[in-house]
């Protein structure tokens, strides 16, 4: 059924449309619109339009979504999965600000368009009476038009026509529309539309699920099981020998380790090695602790060779013999490091500093038990 929508009038220049819009507004019409091929500055003033309320929608939407985002981030960081990241507090506001800013801008922009579509253009309705009319063709190329809607309280067909021609319109059309086709009522909560949206959402979800999990066996998340890195003891196709771990370059020295140069050369150690640590109280205390742990079971608490082994293992010799007294610090260090006869080397278990501390402690014991005349004075 076709029904009258509006009387549409065409004008030729922007100046004409400015004065025409002002006259239409002055005549007291409320339901009318002006269509121009490009934005004409000052038209809103001529039409006496109130300023748009869209800005308020935008700020309300933006601030609401910003608050929701802030709450969501709070919930993630403080409630659901509290975790200290980078030494920051659990609620690191400065880190949230960029996200809040982006969310405000994004939702403000996108949802403003959505609100505009739903409230002003009555989405999902996508037809308008002016579509497909010769009037619309004219105003979307190079003409300027006013159309006064039939629902206006002051509308009467002949009167409006006469009025429009009196303000200088060069062409006046009646615009009809089909009520079946154009529905100007809100349809967003229409049951058909809502059910249709749910059907689309359900179909999309189910098909994505089937596609990803059943058809392709492509898990959306592998929970970090697969990582593009070579793990320890792993096979690697990249290297020729197929081993993922690399051997260090010849001559590399690990951090904190000093290579021992005299492993087969006790005389060299005797001549060249000098105790780098001063036998102060702290060093000797360290040496005593380590000596009592590692050396005393065989050599005895005072290094007299009186061990607690009671013959179950060859007794360690005394460390107060003339041979030991004549040895240099380096020689003793060599024996602790590499071992001698049945004594094992201790370089794996006792660090370099501790070995030198033991040497200092042995020297202390020797001096205490084998004191010379000079020491007594």
């Amino acid at each position, binding site marked *: 059924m076709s029904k009258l929508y509006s009387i549409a009038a065409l004008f030729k220049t922007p100046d004409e449309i*400015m004065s025409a819009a002002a006259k239409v507004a002055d005549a007291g019409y409320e339901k009318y619109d002006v269509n121009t091929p490009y934005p004409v500055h000052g038209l809103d003033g001529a039409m006496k339009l109130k300023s748009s309320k869209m*800005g308020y929608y935008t700020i309300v939407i933006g601030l609401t979504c910003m608050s929701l985002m802030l709450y969501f981030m709070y919930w993630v960081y403080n409630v659901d999965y509290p975790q200290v990241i*980078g030494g920051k507090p659990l609620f690191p506001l*400065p880190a949230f*600000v960029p996200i809040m800013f982006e969310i405000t801008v994004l939702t403000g922009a996108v949802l403003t368009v959505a609100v505009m579509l739903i409230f002003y253009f009555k989405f999902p309705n996508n037809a308008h009476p002016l579509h497909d009319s010769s009037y619309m063709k004219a105003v979307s190329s190079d003409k300027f038009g006013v159309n006064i809607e039939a629902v206006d309280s002051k509308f009467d067909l002949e009167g409006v026509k006469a009025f429009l021609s009196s303000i200088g319109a060069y062409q006046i059309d009646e615009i009809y529309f089909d009520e079946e086709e154009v529905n100007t009522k809100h349809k967003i909560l229409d049951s058909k539309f809502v059910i249709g949206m749910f059907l689309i959402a359900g179909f999309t979800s189910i098909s994505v699920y089937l596609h990803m999990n059943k058809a392709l066996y492509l898990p959306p998340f592998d929970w970090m099981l697969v990582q593009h890195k070579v793990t320890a003891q792993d096979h690697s196709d990249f290297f020729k020998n197929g081993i993922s771990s690399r051997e260090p370059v010849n001559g590399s020295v690990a951090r904190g380790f000093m290579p021992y140069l005299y492993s087969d050369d006790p005389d060299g150690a005797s001549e060249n090695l000098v105790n780098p640590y001063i036998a102060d109280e702290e060093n000797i205390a360290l040496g005593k602790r380590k000596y009592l742990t590692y050396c005393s079971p065989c050599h005895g608490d005072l290094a007299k060779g009186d061990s607690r082994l009671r013959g179950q293992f060859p007794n360690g010799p005394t460390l107060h013999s003339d041979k030991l007294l004549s040895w240099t610090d380096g020689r003793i260090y060599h024996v602790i490091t590499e071992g001698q006869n049945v004594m094992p080397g201790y370089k794996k278990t006792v660090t370099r500093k501790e070995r030198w501390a033991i040497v200092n402690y042995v020297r202390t014991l020797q001096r205490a038990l084998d004191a010379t005349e000079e020491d007594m004075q």
Partner: protein
Amino acid sequence: MSNHEIQINYTKKDLPKGYLKFGLPLLVIGIITAFFAYQLDPMRASFNNIISLLLIVSVGMGAIFLVALEHIAGAVWSVPFRRIAEQQGFIFLATPLLALPILFNMHEIFEWAHLDVVMNDPILYQKSPYLNTEFFYARSIGIFLIMTFFLFVYLRNSMSQDTTQSQKTTKINALISAPFMAIFAISITMVAIDYAMSLEPHWFSTIFGVYYFSGTFATAMAVLTLITLNLKENGNLLKEINRNHYYSMGGLMFAFTAFWMYMAFSQYMLIWYANIPEETFWFLPRMKNGWEYLSIGLVFIKFIIPFGLLLNRNSKMDPSRLKLASFWIIGAHIYDMYWLVMPTYNRMSGTEGPVFGWIELGFISLSVGIILVFYYLAANKKNHIPIGDPKLKRALDFQI
């Protein structure tokens, strides 16, 4: 888009008396306070002097930038205010008045001006090719001379256009504005680094120049807006200047209010995130001893309140609301400069917490006096409208 041809009938009119009536006493009070302040407490006076200098550079150099911006962008709407901006740029000539006491007092304020300190400090030693007294003098004088040159070129071209109405002048202005932009960018960065950032010579922030520039633009625009509104009320300008023009001025202030926050927050967040002692130590004094309230207040005073004041479309069009916002932005810029400079005064003088007294008030009075008096000197008995500009008619017929 109106169908009648605009006729420009401009009659020259004297400036309102207020500029000299308020400006001169404020200037005199300012000079007297500054003099006594330098006698009694030279260090505090020097730091306040820096605040005043940064404000005057913002107003003056920012105005020259506004002129160049109009030329290089070919902007039309701002043509009726260009002469005001040019005459506002004249305020830049007051900078030596404020810079000389600082240059003579450098040892009082700048750590890097002491040779023995620099030689014993590896960071300052590394920076010494830039931060040394000779180069500092050279930069200050060079920036002043170059900016003055551009200012007088713009003023002379604009004045001559009043009679010749030549299109060629507009083209020449656009041409010289291109190199000006590059020079201005370097100059304002140097001003910010030299007079504000080098107070803490161990600190560095690449964004600091832009931070200062964002405040500069908003402040220059605010002063321009205030003068425009005042002259319009007094009838010195054309009657065609209307709310649409005001809207654009308010819009620019609004934009640069938000831009300032963007810059300030970028600087803060990166330093907060990285948490490196070399960078964070600049913010630490601003987070204790009462400065924390000023720091939080800065966000409100410089961003949230002017943002709210200018957010609405009508608030940019309504002269009285626009005036309030402009005053607020200028005040906020002084507050910002105070916040930038004064924590260093605490460190150097051993005081704790923000200080505010007659010295601060005196220097603010000095700055306001300089703005009013120098604008009066530049604009009195001159045209307030570039009546010869070929774009003027189109500019008056401006609608948003």
